[in-house]
């Protein structure tokens, strides 16, 4: 089992021009805990939409690697988006699910993955070029390299511990998060 913030920190090391979308709840806090960055688009709502925000961004910025870092509950709510991504085959898009098998924000109720629902198998069935379950930090560097490889779409299910970590709260103003991101990317009109 992985320490979630250790794994995210490993993925985001030497991130270069990587564009990051974080799913609401703990993944947003985990991404913020690794260091605030203007090219982080933190979601605080729109549950189930993180992967699709990533797809729209990846299609618009085909020369940039895009990483969506989200939770198992958020991914389960947008499971159909894996099929949509599979149709488009964006080579620059990676979806990373920090899977603690529970809904951490709402009182640790078990999620579908706790009952053995297999997200990697779903991603494979949806024609992701790479789909892997990661349980050990020793694979972190390979996964990090995969995000930047341009050989996606990539799906990483990271089995993480259920630790309740202190919240690290980034910007909450949606306009501010958007403007800062677009200014850094050069897409502000």
């Amino acid at each position: 089992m992985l320490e979630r913030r250790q794994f995210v920190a490993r993925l985001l090391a030497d991130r270069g021009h990587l564009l990051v979308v974080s799913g609401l709840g703990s993944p947003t806090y985990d991404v913020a805990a690794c260091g605030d960055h203007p090219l982080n688009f933190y979601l605080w709502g729109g549950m189930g939409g993180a992967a699709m925000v990533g797809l729209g961004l990846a299609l618009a910025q085909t020369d940039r690697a895009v990483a969506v870092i989200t939770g198992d509950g958020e991914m389960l709510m947008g499971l159909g988006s894996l099929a949509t991504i599979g149709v488009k085959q964006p080579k620059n898009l990676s979806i990373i699910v920090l899977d603690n098998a529970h809904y951490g924000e709402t009182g640790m109720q078990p999620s579908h993955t706790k009952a053995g629902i297999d997200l990697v198998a779903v991603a494979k069935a949806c024609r992701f070029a790479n789909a892997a379950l990661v349980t050990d930090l020793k694979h972190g560097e390979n996964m990090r390299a995969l995000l930047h490889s341009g050989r996606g779409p990539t799906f990483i299910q990271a089995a993480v511990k259920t630790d309740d970590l202190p919240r690290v709260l980034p910007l909450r103003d949606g306009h501010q998060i958007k403007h800062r991101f677009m200014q850094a990317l050069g897409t502000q009109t």
Partner: protein
Amino acid sequence: MARRPQKSTSTRAASAQRSAWPDDIHAQFTRVGIRQVGYVPDAGHSRLIALCRNDPAIADVVLTTEEEGVGLVAGAALGGQRAALLMQSSGVGNCVNMVSLLRICGFPCLILVTMRGEFAEFNPWQVPMGSITEPALNLCGFLTYRVDDPDDVEDVVAAGCDMAFGGNLSVAILLSQRLIGRKHWSD
């Protein structure tokens, strides 16, 4: 409902002209530089979907449910591209919570909605959502413009594009069931 007189004297030419409204919408997509179009397959939008799929300037994204399109629009805007969504009125109901992304961040959004559950609707199961589509969109913060006459499509879509992308607003164009025509269940 009052209609403008037909411009053409030939019934066949008039009919062809009246069915060309999807081409008018596509021309507006070209004018304002729409680069991504998300859609759930829909009979009323079938010609426009085909035009977008055949347009090399547009990435067409077939969705499993309409709310995916809201995320797509947000991501496209972050990446500097304009996007539009095509859906049936029933799909509007699938989007309600996800639309909060548009409002809280001020992303532009243009949705073309083909209406069901109104004029000459054969299937009463379409009526509950069709009858609340426009107020639901308004509650979600969308400006809504309804089109009944094919001759008005170009103007209204052009205005909607300019408002959405000029002001980071959410705009929905409702293409009425009378405009689209009866669904022929015997075909």
